[in-house]
């Protein structure tokens, strides 16, 4: 199953974030901007980290910001934020973070397919630094194998 569409509105490059909260907020803003979530979801992603710690920093330099499904998730979505200056999330091994991926899912089951696709993409260790260094949205889409539009829009 392909990744959800990654329109320009879901991508922010070279964001200046003072701390991890600002970095996660940028990923939430991008999810909101692409129409995937409302602002409440961004707050819930931050609460997840306040509650459980920096475990969302799942690989060197990469944070997967997300929260549980909820009414603030309008449609499943993905956002990508690259940081101008890497920020620390407080993870013992994988800090500092230069790429934040925002993930919003509507239920536990359907998203596993595109999460598998994310695992495929990032199984190549060179992808995270390449995304961090990308200078435009097309470059990031190409690295992730994502499209700007949903498949149904591409077909129409």
């Amino acid at each position, binding site marked *: 199953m392909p990744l959800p569409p990654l329109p320009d509105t879901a991508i922010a490059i070279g964001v200046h974030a003072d701390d991890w909260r600002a970095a996660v907020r940028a990923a939430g803003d991008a999810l909101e901007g692409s129409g995937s979530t409302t602002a409440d979801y961004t707050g819930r992603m931050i609460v997840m980290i306040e509650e459980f710690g920096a475990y969302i920093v799942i*690989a060197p330099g990469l944070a997967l910001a997300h929260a549980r499904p909820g009414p603030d998730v309008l449609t499943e979505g993905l956002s990508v934020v690259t940081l101008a200056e890497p920020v620390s999330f407080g993870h013992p091994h994988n800090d500092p973070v230069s790429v934040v991926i925002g993930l919003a*899912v509507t239920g536990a089951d359907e998203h596993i397919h595109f*999460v598998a696709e994310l*695992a495929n993409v990032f199984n190549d*260790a060179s992808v995270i630094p390449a995304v961090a260094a990308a200078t435009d949205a097309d470059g990031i889409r190409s690295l992730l194998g994502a499209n700007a539009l949903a498949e149904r829009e591409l077909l129409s």
Partner: protein
Amino acid sequence: MKIVALCGAGVGTSAILKVTAERALKRLGIDAEVTATDVASVRAVASDAQVILSSSELVEAIGKTNADVIVVDNYFDLDELTQKLEVALG
């Protein structure tokens, strides 16, 4: 055999861990069921599990368990997970 992949929400990082773990188990030729779960339900879900995969941050939340707890640093690193699962299950 049952293996549990743990994360805070049960829908994001644990799902990635599940995918990587299934690949590592395939590599090792081990037949096991991998279940993604969250902190709130880990005790119930992991009561009959051999292995719990987790981030170092969440180890405390697991509490007492008979399962081997494997701390995973890089959730995408198939080599790391294969090696750690081999040690735990071998």
